[in-house]
């Protein structure tokens, strides 16, 4: 297991390298340049040149890439044009909010998906199964921002059960403020997980080792948790990890809908403000976050399935 983790950690190196290359190329390969994009119609040559110089865009690509990697390695992600703050400290300020939101959404989606997947699979093709699947198929087709607005209006504005936005000042307040946004985010993920887990459970329940467990006289609950769920989770964990990216993408939108001062909101604001260094830094941070999630997912999967880590 330890050697597996070490090996998996080493695989992060090429992944990080690729992430850096992609972000580097993002600015250089696409038509149009960030300076003009930042300045918009107000662009005059002197400003464009100054920004290009600030971003190092007037040097050769190789030199630029070395400088780019060096800067990132030392934690220098540049400075926000709008907010006049180092990008790194901005990210460190805002990212925890997004992480809390994403974590809450992930937990809610698991809490929804796991029992409902069992209910669905154990009542396969019966009305309960069709109802559950119908509701979640609907969940797959609703855009996050729309669901957010609907929940916000109904539970926030109409019923007044939850705040209509913001983040609060204390931890309990944070969590209270994030309930609706997390629910919004969770529904899509829950739908994806439910679909996969239901299929996995149906596959596992037909497996001979479940028959063997029954032949041993084990209680249904033990069979369900130890034998069925654990095996069914293996493929679902992978999917869960892969979906964290979608979840973070959804967080960008959700934070905008609920006016939550998280990383996603920062990113969208930076685009409106053409604050290119922040967008670049944020993209980097989120990509690194996702690849770390993949790492954790793989470790959890190896723990669930001893055949993986050998």
């Amino acid at each position, binding site marked *: 297991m330890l050697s597996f983790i070490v090996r998996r950690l080493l695989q992060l190196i090429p992944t990080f390298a690729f992430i850096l290359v992609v972000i580097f190329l993002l600015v250089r390969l696409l038509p149009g340049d960030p300076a003009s994009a930042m300045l918009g119609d107000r662009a005059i040559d002197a400003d464009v040149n100054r920004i290009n110089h600030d971003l190092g865009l007037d040097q050769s690509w190789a030199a630029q890439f070395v400088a780019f990697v060096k800067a990132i390695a030392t934690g220098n992600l540049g400075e926000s044009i709008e907010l006049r703050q180092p990008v790194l400290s901005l990210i460190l300020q805002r990212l925890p909010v997004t992480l809390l939101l994403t974590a809450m959404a992930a937990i809610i989606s698991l809490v929804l998906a796991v029992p409902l997947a069992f209910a669905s699979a154990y009542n396969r093709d019966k009305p309960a199964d069709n109802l559950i699947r119908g509701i979640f198929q609907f969940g797959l087709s609703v855009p996050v921002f729309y669901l957010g607005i609907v929940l916000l209006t109904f539970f926030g504005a109409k019923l007044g059960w939850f705040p209509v936005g913001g983040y609060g000042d204390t931890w309990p307040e944070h969590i209270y403020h994030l309930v609706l946004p997390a629910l919004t985010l969770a529904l899509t993920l829950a739908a994806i997980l439910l679909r996969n887990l239901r299929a996995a459970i149906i596959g596992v329940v037909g497996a001979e*080792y479940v028959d*063997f467990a*029954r*032949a041993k006289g*084990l209680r249904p609950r033990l069979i369900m948790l130890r034998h069925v769920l654990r095996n069914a989770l293996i493929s679902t964990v992978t999917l869960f990890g892969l979906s964290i990216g979608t979840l973070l993408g959804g967080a960008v939108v959700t934070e905008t809908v609920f006016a939550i001062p998280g990383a996603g909101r920062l990113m969208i604001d930076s685009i409106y403000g053409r604050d290119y260094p922040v967008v670049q830094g944020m993209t980097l941070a989120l990509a690194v976050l996702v690849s770390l999630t993949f790492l954790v997912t793989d470790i959890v999967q190896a723990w*669930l399935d*001893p*055949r993986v880590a050998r």
Partner: protein
Amino acid sequence: MNAVADMTPAPALEVRGLTTVFESAAGPVKAVDDVGFDVLPGEVVGLVGESGSGKSVTLRSIMRLVHAPGKVSGSVRWQGRDLIGLSEADLREVRGGEIAMIFQEPMTALNPVLPVGLQIEENLATHLALGRRERAKRAEELLDMVGIPEARRRLHDYPHQFSGGMRQRVMIAIALASSPKLLLADEPTTALDVTIQDQILKLILRLRDELSMSVVLVTHDLGVVAATCDRMAVMYAGRIVETGRVADIFAEPHHPYTRGLLGSVPQAGTERSQLLSIEGTPPALSAIPPGCAFHPRCSFHVGRCLVDRPPLDGFAPGRSVACFEHRRVAAAGLAR
């Protein structure tokens, strides 16, 4: 109907009229049709037939382990109780505790993600009042008993870390953890090499003696039956067509299907002769011919076989057969 004529000791297991029906879009399919047999204490009974003959479903039906669209009826009397009518909770005490079952392919029957020690201990925890330490000790003893070297160390290993034969031993250890009185074995050696096959069969016989249990062995391999079983029942298209002592049936089969099966096995000590083979293939369970299900493949059939289904009747002490023409079949012998 009564499959085996009464012998002196009372049977441990009495199966009567066991019928398992699967509802399908095309209508009900009888996988097991009115099956009855007895198993005496300490006895090994072989259930023989081709794949699709219903022998594995019969075994599962005894423990009510048939999957959802399947419905089991009839009676399975075990120690004064009818397993078919038993509540789920009572049945769970019988499963694993009094009657154990092992499967053909240990790779799929063992949970791949749990260490084998845990898979033994969960059986112990369900049926016996043992403390944690006693369970671990007993698990080690069990692995040792089925002949796995370095039992203590291997408790923490996963199924994929064992070889095929060792894996089958592990499954037997798990199944027998709570010292059951009856073992239902579903083709336990089919997936194994011939040499290992022999070791596993010897192990099962040894454990039968040590734990004084009975065994029902499902197999398609008559060699296995000859080597291990006291009595046998031959199944065809969901029904038992012939039962009796193994030695008697091997000496003089009375059902043309049994005769065909035996004739297709080369026999030691006899002169080289052409092997018999059975023409055609067994019928699909959804399309069983009227009358005797075997008649389309039978060279002995007469007009009546196409219309009436021959009942399983006793014709000698401990022997019964479901064939109108069984005297002719017996007289024909095994020569072609």
